[in-house]
């Protein structure tokens, strides 16, 4: 360990750090307060931040994990494009994933902040907009095959020039999006957040002067770097690789897509290397490099014990590698609108590698992240409707506890939409929203229970699009825990017309059709035969495990609402003998 670092003026430093984080948080609150759209308000699919005049990240407010580290990439692209022609009163924006963006719905807005003619900072916001044009409403389709199908590409541009709006750009945006009122309102929210940041940051600069402010910024970045390196230094050294598979890209059906990562950790540095991952695919699930960085940073943060302010200093201690032309670092003309799926699955993959580094800290595979369901079409009176639902919510078992059930994924923290609001506003009825029995991976600690959700179409006809995964690769179990269960899509369950559907598809449906979506069951942790029989009994009482499942998955015999101890001991002994030692560290297949 290094000696205790020194900060020139520790009191002034802490006040400065607090003030910057407060500004970035206030920007985020401004967006939740002023936005119209559910994507921003409920799903919180946005981030706010503060960068210095050179584009280095110095403070981040609310951070959607998927946006970690994306701002410097985007801002660098904007600074490279405009250089010294950036003047006071300008507002810069972009969304093009091939010029600093992440995917087209994410619009970056930057406001340079000047003090006496000197550029001292940038206020930065990213918001996921409800629609940015393209071939499918919501601009989210998984089955586009080129970026050109996905909507309006905005390269680094000036939204305002010296305080004057760029009317041409505004007109272009209005003309190319399906819901211009909503998009404009959300852009206004982004601008409002930047204005608030500017006013408050200039008060700080007035207090400390430009040189004093810069010195404090340097200290803040160094401080985060020290914290990060100290936390990384506490992790074991070594190299760990892990492989996982995405079912397919929804275009080349049934063709699995490989994710492969290697973490190399030495002293106070760590590297996440995605070499070995699949070449880029035709479907719209390719990542920008910045999105691969975000997934890598998020996974690493999950294994660090310290709470570290997110800034340039955090990134300095972490290297991310991803070869060009792969799903982890796409090249033109790859499509990327639905790359969220790849991000979620990269978290599963990265945590798999990190589980070998920190067996005490990392959970088994989750349900694989959220499933996207879009139902769109026209009502009887020719009004368009678009219903978009993102749903997920079961964590893998942890080395000390069962996985969570009914909880957002670690990579997104999205809220669900109310069933009653959905039914009041869309020609859709939800018939079921309930945990499933015997679907969580068994273990000393079991995975969280996944849920099933049934959607009935009430419109005469509609287009149904689903983006799901984990239908042919089970969430892995850890250290003896069982693998979880497949996700499933079923059309018209319990009727003569019942049939299974693939994980990703677009199809026409008619009134009365029912889609049942069942989330994948997450993996378990530790030997299921060691789970205390009383804990299994509790799960049976709560309907998470059936009586048959208790015997099959845990070797626990339950009779008349109690554990039959003798029969359980016998059943467990027989199972242990037939099985041999519990597999470790990973279980990917169902027990035979």
């Amino acid at each position, binding site marked *: 360990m290094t000696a*205790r*670092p*020194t*900060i020139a003026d520790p*009191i002034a430093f*802490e*006040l400065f*750090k*607090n003030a910057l984080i*407060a500004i970035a*948080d*206030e920007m*985020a*609150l401004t967006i939740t*307060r*002023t936005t*119209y*759209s*559910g994507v921003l308000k409920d799903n919180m699919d946005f981030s706010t931040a503060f960068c210095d005049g050179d584009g280095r990240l110095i403070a981040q*407010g*609310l*951070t959607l*994990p998927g946006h970690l580290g994306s701002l410097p990439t985007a801002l660098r692209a904007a600074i490279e494009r405009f250089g010294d022609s950036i003047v006071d009163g300008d507002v810069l924006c972009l969304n093009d994933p091939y010029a600093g963006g992440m995917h087209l719905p994410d619009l970056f807005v930057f406001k340079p902040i000047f003090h006496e003619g000197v550029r001292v900072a940038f206020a930065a916001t990213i918001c996921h907009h409800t629609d940015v044009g393209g071939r499918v409403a919501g601009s989210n389709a998984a089955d586009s095959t080129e970026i050109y199908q996905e909507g309006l590409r905005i390269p680094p541009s000036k939204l305002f020039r010296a305080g004057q709006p760029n009317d041409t750009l505004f007109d272009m945006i209005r003309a190319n999006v399906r819901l211009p*009122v*909503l998009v404009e*309102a959300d852009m*206004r929210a982004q601008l*409002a957040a930047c204005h608030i940041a500017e006013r408050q940051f200039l008060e700080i600069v007035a207090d400390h002067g430009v040189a004093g402010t810069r010195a404090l910024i340097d200290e803040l970045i160094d*401080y985060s770097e*020290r*914290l990060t390196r*100290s936390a990384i230094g506490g992790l074991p050294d070594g190299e760990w690789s892990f492989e996982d598979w995405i079912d397919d890209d929804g275009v080349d059906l049934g063709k699995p897509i490989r994710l492969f990562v290697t973490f190399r950790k030495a002293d106070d540095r760590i590297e996440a290397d995605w070499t070995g991952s699949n070449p880029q695919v035709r479907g719209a699930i390719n990542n920008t490099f910045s999105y691969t960085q975000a997934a890598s940073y*998020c996974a690493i943060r*999950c294994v660090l014990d310290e709470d570290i302010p997110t800034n340039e200093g955090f990134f300095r201690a972490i290297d991310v590698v991803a070869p060009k032309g792969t799903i982890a670092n796409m090249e033109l003309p790859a499509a990327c609108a639905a790359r969220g799926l790849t991000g979620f699955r990269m978290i599963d993959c990265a945590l798999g590698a990190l589980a070998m580094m920190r067996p005490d*800290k990392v959970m088994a595979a989750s349900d694989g992240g959220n499933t996207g369901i879009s139902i769109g079409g026209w009502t009887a009176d020719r009004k368009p409707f678009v219903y978009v639902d993102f749903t*997920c919510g079961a964590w893998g078992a942890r080395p000390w506890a069962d996985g*969570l*059930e*009914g*909880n*957002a994924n*670690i990579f997104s*923290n*999205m*809220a*669900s939409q*109310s*069933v*009653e*609001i959905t039914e*009041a506003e869309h020609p859709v*009825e939800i*018939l*079921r*929203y*309930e*945990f499933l029995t015997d679907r969580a991976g068994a273990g000393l600690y079991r995975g969280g229970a996944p*849920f099933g959700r049934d959607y009935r179409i009430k419109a005469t006809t509609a287009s149904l699009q689903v983006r799901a995964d984990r239908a042919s690769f089970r969430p892995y179990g850890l250290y003896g825990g069982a693998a979880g269960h497949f996700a499933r899509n079923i059309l018209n369950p319990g009727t003569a017309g019942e049939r299974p559907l693939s994980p990703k598809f677009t199809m026409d449906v008619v009134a009365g059709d029912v889609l049942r979506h069942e989330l994948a069951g997450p993996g378990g942790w530790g030997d299921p035969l060691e789970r205390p029989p009383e804990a299994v009994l509790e799960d049976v009482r*709560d*309907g998470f495990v059936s009586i048959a499942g208790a015997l099959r998955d845990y070797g626990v015999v339950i009779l008349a609402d109690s554990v039959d101890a003798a029969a359980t001991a016998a059943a467990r002994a027989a199972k242990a003998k037939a099985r041999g030692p519990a597999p470790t560290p990973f279980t990917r297949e169902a027990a035979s």
Partner: protein
Amino acid sequence: MSGQWRVGVDIGGTFTDIVLLGPDGRLAVRKVSSSVDDYARAIVEGLEIALREAGLTAADVSEIRHGATVASNAILERRGAKVGLIGTEGFRDILEIRTLRMPRLYDLAWEKPKPLVPRRLRLTVPERIDATGAVTTPLDLAAAAAAIDHLVGEGVDAIAVAFLNAYANPVHEQAMARLMAERAPGVAACISTDVLPEIREYERTSTTVVNCYVLPIVAAYLKSLKAGLRDQGIAAPVSLMQSSGGLTPADAAARLPVHIIESGPAGGVVGAQALAAPLGEASIVSFDMGGTTAKAALVIDGRAERADELQVGGEAIQASRLLTGQGYSVKTRAIDLAEVGAGGGSIVWIDAGGAMQIGPKSAGASPGPVSYGMGGTEPTITDANLILGYLNPAGLAGGERTLDLAAARAAFKAKVADPLGLSVEDAAFGARRIAVANMMRAIRAVTVERGRDPRSAALFAFGGNGPMFGWDMAAALGMQRVIAPPAPGLFSAFGLLYAEVEHHYGRTLRRVLASADPEEIERAWRSLEDEGSAQLTAEGFKPADQEVRRSASLRYKGQTHELEVDWSGAFDLAARDGLAEAFGVEHARVYGHRAGLAEPVELITLRASGRGLGERAPLAKSTDRKAAAGGGWRPAYFGPETGWLETPILARSDLAEQRIGPFIVEEYDATCLAPPGVSGQLEPVTNAITLRRAKV
């Protein structure tokens, strides 16, 4: 024959505060230890002592107003009732799935709060009502009866019923209520449309379950309290403070205890509001700082700002309002309070990156600050105040404890000052500045983050540590005046004396305003008003003393959140445009913009509130004479630029004449600090100290 003394009683975890206010404004206060096994006992016994000390008898008490933590404690400690929940088939897990949202990021160790009803006690029955209120699957009465019988067999104390879309048509829930009355007369029963007839199934279900969870406990508590008072010969009516800042009679609280969950902190805000008005301060920020937390609320034009949802029973401290899900959702009217984990007991420490941090860990009451000499080894904010000379080493005037200055200095030196290369007093002074910056977040949360500028408001500082930090807080926020009320440590009890009876009603009625039937809206609004009037009449308020107001929650179609707008007068065709316009104005105020007139405005929920206007309590003239006498001087440190200054120690009464800081006012339960350049003066009518920047 009823008496003329009002009594306010506020229960905390450690102390029960009792305040008596006579018709002439005479004030008597008493602090007694809380009786954790039976909170009612401390009230009854403490009241008996307080009356005796004040030379009064049971017959002198006209009414008792009570801020009770019994409901929130039951949730925090998970000692509530065994509740069963019956829902719609296919939706067994609404309560547990919640909104999926978690309050922390990147934390694999995050645990959700366990649902208040375990899955085995959550049953469903076939029934279905659609979004328009039409019955699409009739309620299966046989299955319903079987579900009730099953839960009774499981030994539940209470049954909650929450059906999907019941807000649009409560007929199935009402059938369940009848069935439960028949089959389970001994079990408390609540249907969601009686508790919260509003859209959003999770919030409605959770609110109903929380109501059931605390109902038997609150009912038993109030019964025991009344019996204890009766034994003392006190027949005066008891009312409870609600989270909204309005009072409700004990009987109503026993029926809908969900409204009294945040009863505790509300009293102080209402008191601040009442005491600020005669000072000509219509808009204030209340700042309540104790040993472990600091809370802030905003009063604008004499009305506390309200929130419409609480998260209860989770981690008490919410650092950021961006992240939710730490507790159980309760949709109820509540004063909009923000809280941060900073108080006198907050620990000062240095993180791995070399930065000074305050809290959120607190030394609490045990072991307490280092200077208490009770085994505490970590330096705290109270130790900093002692080092700086702000606190009296001989202890507070009314206090029984002396403070160990040498131990506080030694701990600060070893753990904070030396590692940072600072002098002990500069480290202590810096710790206070950082604590101020942390607490500013609570005030910013209820002002700037709500689109309100605090700078023209006065800061109303109370709680054991409020007046000690009041001026620094105000200065940091650009506020010009600080008000420190009498008996700041007991102020939450005192505030109860100024509250009024208040009830809130709401019903979801989703209609696009432009095409809504005005008669339907008028009818629905009137029925809510009638409900309010009937309740107030039953409580003995004459029609002239009833104030019933209308409001509505609206949004632009497509938005996911509503804004509430007040409305007065009957609702007719012309009023539709008026209401839409009022919404547009409010939207522009809150969001900074409004949509064009063509943008459809959607009505979501109609609301009414009923207030019972009683005779207002007189202003308190003086506290009892146990207050400190003041006197003497002590060196106090005011930062590296000013250094140590000999500082006079005053009593509140010494401020009858304006004094210029620095000075320190020592009292029975709190210390008020005025740094150099700040003037202070006692305001004779309210007995409050006002601090201002001194004119030079």
